[in-house]
């Protein structure tokens, strides 16, 4: 126990004694052993630390911070160390399950490359300093005495929510109007816009479990899109009898595509055409009512026939027919669009066309439910995207940003070269990185403030995807901080705020005290009669605070949900002059690049976690490296073999990686997974593989201005080298031996 540098008293000082005892009460989880039970059977330490019983693991609830889905987690704590994370069974989001990335949060916490010491840039080099020195530097940059125009300060973060966002906004206000840019490479900006335009709310719930057939355009909802664990829980029920049928239309097979009954290899950028063709087929063969659609779209349906679609989308007419048939006969259906479908110049139109299928099939209000915004807008997630990053870059390059406060994002890695983040960041005089690791961005910073890991800090969060009634997820420390010279982001923000407004923030010793106070301030009606302490402790035990919505869902949305051609919908379709693009061949760059979202490494932020590096990719089974996915027919045409090192070149750049051949990718596409190619991100990530994001063209979605990830055309050139791929497993097929048995649904008696 005493091997940690931070002693128990420091821990208590940070978390607050109340917090610790509350956390103790939180151990009363269904799967826990309580202290009372354990007490009789253990030999205590000579000098026992309170609440630690040797040999007894206690589970504490918290919230996963690996992505913004906000899954509830429980962490097993034994002898003061957190050992394992599991899903919180009472969380409505993940119902006890947890994805591989969430479980690997432990390796963020225990990562050998975590920053232990603040750093300041002196004479071009980052030098280790004490926290006090680093904070003093921060103070002189953005403190009241800095004399800086507040509007020259900018936040550059990932998606933030909860009181972290509240405090960031408070800092912005205190310094005098700092701007806030949130950047996420994998985002739903386009989908949110379509949802707002079509369904009347950017927040919709996809009732996967209730559907009998699902058609997903590019949305890898089981792995990288939306709330994957929640969707997977629902998917499990979806496959229960009566078994739902899943159709996935995407250019490169994702985890979700791998589970599809029918996988449609749509040519990149023609998802909208495919959606319209299915709509036309539904109207023509299955009696769907075209008048449900806005006129501008209904009029166009005639242009989409199965045959012309096949030439455009590359999907065989018979498969489209089958898909339409499933949707028509297996009601209720659900059409989801996102991910690669939205990542094109006309992604908005493609997603809209898919949304129209929901309208046509009458799913709105049944399997797709628009919901109100989070009742406390100050806590609601500020969702990131690349459009905001581009705006930041533009402003920075214009010399209008003096201080950038960077947290939870790594634009120097994720931004395409065309955005020239290096120039943008170097135009910023003082870059402050709040981070746990030295990555591409923080290594460019002038002040590096090492943060507590998520296992060490308090927090509140609001999930980007609302699965049920609104709630605030609670994050509590699962163990003492490993390092003395790290602080939580909340504490640091409070410290900054105290510089400006000692009266308001002074009473809060730390972020914990602040949060505790905030919860106390929750109106009694929301606590449903519970005392303040009971409400707080229940929150800690469950890892979430239920908040009662102050207002019901707007009546307008409720109506829109059932009214097939809502006003908003008609307006949107008509005003934008709904036009779908025609697939154009490009002689110099014949193939479309899919920078594939990785189910293991996300957009690259998990590349420093060894479990995830060694976890094989679901589709290719490749580990530790990058690869280029290609259709065997394409490879045959260009003369490539499995394992060939090729150069994938766009007009903007190129990457070199080995080829993996499979038939789960459109012939006109190549896919390079995101996540690798770090130049600075610790021992597990640095110098490994390639980063396809760098070579992207800065084509944007016309309607939203969001970067179109899949709009880059590339050519593939051999380098003449061939090596065996580093992957798990030998044979690609079962060679006739029954390992995975498959039966057709006809054989499956429907109950």
């Amino acid at each position, binding site marked *: 126990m005493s091997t940690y540098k931070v002693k128990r008293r420091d821990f208590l000082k940070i978390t607050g004694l109340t917090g610790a005892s509350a956390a103790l009460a939180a151990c009363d989880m269904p799967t826990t052993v309580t202290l009372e039970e354990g007490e009789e059977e253990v030999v205590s330490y000579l000098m026992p630390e309170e609440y630690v019983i040797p040999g007894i693991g206690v589970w504490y609830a918290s919230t996963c911070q690996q992505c913004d889905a906000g899954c509830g987690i429980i962490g097993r704590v034994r002898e003061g160390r957190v050992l394992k994370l599991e899903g919180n069974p009472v969380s409505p989001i993940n119902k006890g399950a947890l994805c591989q990335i969430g479980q690997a949060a432990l390796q963020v916490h225990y990562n050998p490359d975590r920053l232990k010491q603040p750093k300041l840039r002196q004479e071009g080099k980052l030098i280790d300093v004490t926290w006090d020195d680093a904070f003093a530097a921060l103070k002189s940059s953005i403190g009241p005495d800095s004399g800086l125009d507040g509007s020259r300060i900018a936040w550059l973060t990932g998606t933030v929510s909860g009181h972290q966002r509240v405090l960031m906004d408070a800092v912005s206000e205190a310094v005098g109007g700092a701007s806030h840019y949130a950047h996420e490479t994998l985002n739903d900006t386009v989908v949110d816009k379509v949802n707002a335009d079509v369904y009347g709310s950017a927040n919709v719930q996809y009732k996967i479990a209730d559907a009998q057939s699902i058609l997903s355009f590019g949305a890898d909802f089981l792995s990288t899109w939306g709330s994957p664990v929640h969707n997977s829980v629902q998917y499990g029920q979806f496959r229960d009898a009566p078994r739902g049928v899943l159709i996935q239309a995407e250019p490169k097979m994702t985890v979700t595509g791998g589970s599809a009954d029918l996988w449609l290899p749509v040519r990149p950028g023609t998802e909208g055409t495919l959606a319209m063709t299915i709509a036309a087929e539904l109207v023509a063969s299955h009696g769907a009512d075209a008048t449900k659609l806005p006129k501008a779209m209904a009029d166009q349906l005639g242009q989409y026939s199965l045959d012309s679609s096949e030439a455009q989308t590359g999907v065989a007419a018979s498969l489209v027919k089958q898909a339409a048939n499933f949707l028509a006969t297996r009601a209720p259906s659900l059409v989801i669009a996102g991910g690669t479908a939205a990542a094109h110049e006309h992604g908005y139109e493609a997603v809209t066309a898919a949304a129209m299928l929901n309208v046509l099939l009458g799913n709105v209000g049944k399997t797709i439910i628009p919901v109100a915004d989070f009742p406390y807008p100050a806590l609601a997630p500020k969702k990131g995207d690349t459009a905001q990053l581009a705006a930041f870059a533009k402003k920075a390059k214009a010399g209008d940003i003096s201080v950038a406060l960077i947290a939870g994002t790594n634009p120097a890695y994720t931004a395409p070269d065309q955005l020239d983040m290096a120039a943008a960041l170097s135009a910023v005089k003082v870059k402050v990185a709040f981070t746990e690791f030295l990555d591409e961005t923080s290594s460019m910073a002038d002040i590096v403030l090492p943060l507590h890991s998520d296992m060490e800090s308090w927090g509140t969060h609001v999930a980007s995807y609302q699965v049920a009634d609104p709630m605030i997820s609670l994050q509590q420390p699962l163990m003492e901080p490993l390092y003395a010279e790290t602080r939580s982001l909340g504490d640091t923000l409070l410290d900054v705020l105290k510089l400006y407004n000692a009266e308001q923030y002074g009473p809060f010793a730390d972020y914990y005290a602040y949060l505790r106070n905030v919860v106390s301030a929750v109106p009694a009606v929301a606590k449903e009669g519970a005392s303040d302490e009971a409400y707080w402790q229940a929150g800690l035990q469950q890892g979430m605070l239920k908040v009662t919505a102050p207002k019901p869902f707007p009546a307008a949305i409720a109506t829109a949900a059932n009214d097939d051609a809502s006003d908003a919908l008609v307006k949107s379709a008509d005003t934008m002059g709904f036009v779908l693009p025609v697939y154009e061949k490009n002689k110099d760059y014949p193939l479309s690049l899919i920078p594939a979202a990785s189910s293991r490494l996300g957009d690259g932020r998990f590349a420093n976690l060894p479990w995830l590096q060694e976890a094989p990719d679901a589709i290719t089974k490749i580990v530790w490296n990058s690869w280029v996915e290609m259709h065997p027919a394409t490879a045959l045409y260009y003369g490539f073999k499995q394992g060939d090192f090729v150069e994938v070149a766009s007009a903007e750049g190129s990457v070199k990686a080995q080829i993996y051949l499979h038939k789960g990718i459109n012939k006109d596409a190549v896919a390079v997974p995101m996540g690798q190619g770090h130049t600075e991100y610790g021992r597990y990530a640095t110098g490994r593989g390639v980063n396809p994001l760098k070579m992207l063209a800065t084509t944007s979605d016309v309607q939203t201005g969001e970067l179109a990830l899949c709009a880059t055309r590339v050519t593939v050139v051999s380098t003449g080298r061939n090596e065996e791929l580093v992957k798990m*497993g*030998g*044979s690609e*097929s*079962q*060679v*006739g*031996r029954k*390992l995975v048995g498959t039966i057709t649904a006809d054989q499956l008696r429907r109950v």
Partner: protein
Amino acid sequence: MHTKDINENLPWSQINKDVMRSMMNPRKAYWVAIIVCIAMISCAVAAEVYQYNVGMGPANLNWPHMWDLYIATFIFWIGMSHPGTLLSAILHIIHADWRKPIYRFAEAMTTFSLMTAGLFPVIHIGRLWNMYWVLPYYSDRGIWPNFRSPLVWDAFAISTYLTSSALFLFIGMIPDLAICRDNTTGWRRKLYTILSLGWRGDDRQWRNFRRTYLLMACFLIPLAVSVHSIVSSDFAMSVMPGWHVTTFPPYFVAGALYSGCAAIMTLFICLRYFFRLEDYMTIPILVKTAKLTFAIAMVWTYLNLIEFASIWYGHNAVDKELLIAKFTGAYSPYFWMMLFIGSVVPFTLASEKLRTHLPTMLVVSLVLNLGMWLERWMIVTPTLSQGYHPFAFDVMWPSMIQWAIVFGSFGWFGLLFLIFVKVFPCVSMYEVKEMCYHRKREAMGVGHGSHAAGGAAGAVTASKTDLEGS
């Protein structure tokens, strides 16, 4: 001269002289050979020390190739141990007296190849410091080895066979050691005095000697056959395709005799050349050995065909696919090479012209041994590369660590053998004399030679007199 197995008029004093000469005064080439062997062993020792410290990883062993060259070479050396028993015990019992000039070094080969083979299980296991756990030693915890495991049978079989063959070699040498004792001085004399166990060559000693020798021979024959059958059960008792083969026991025994006979030919030619033992290791004997090898090669070929055929008509898809993979997959060059060497090359042994040509025979015998080594590799590895579970299909090539240890094992064997030929008579003097005696009587029309103890005893006694008289 080329028609007789041995010149029966060879004076017995000459026999003693020739053989004793081969044991004395090593020449430069001998020391070079010793140094080469030690260098080879050093490679292996270095590799093994590294492997001991780091683990089995650097050997390129992997999932699913848990076994590889170590086990293949283990079987190879076990196989090498068989013809010594064949020559000394089986041919002894069936009264094929042409074996007499060459059985001693064959027997030594048996013992030394077992001593080499025995190293491999130790080298190959992950925690060799716990090797003794496979033996049923007394343990207070009451822990026994698993008697159902073929590896435990191996441990019993090999240790028994090693003990027995060493004893057999030693017992068969006693009369010769007495001759050595009587004709040497210094440390040799002391050594031979102890080892000859007070041999005086009287009738009682000869009678007991004969009985013991015959008994050991009878004991050794089933043992030799069972040892390789048991080694084959390492594979035959498993469930894996390509291993779970009913014909494996005879197949292994045939392969063992095959490689061993080829090795005998190699050593035959070397000894004959280096020690100028042309009078003893005669061409007719080589021809007989070659014929024997050829016969065994055909048995081996037949057993191969049986295996292929039964896999084919047995119609077990897994076995069949493995066989096809052997013929066409990554290992196919080696598999074809093995079939070519094992079944086609031996036809050189059928040619009278070729089999009397010593350099050719040397090359052929070495090639045959290479083929037999490939056979063992092709038994062990392709099955691991392509078993039941397609996800575990893989191809793996051994690393330098494995090669170094395999290479070094030849040095180890060579060193033991080199020491043997300078310390012990590599030709059985008393049996050669017996052979000459019987051949002479045959030539004189006295009748077929008797193996009665008295006759032989007389022969050796006579030899002593002969020697003294010269």
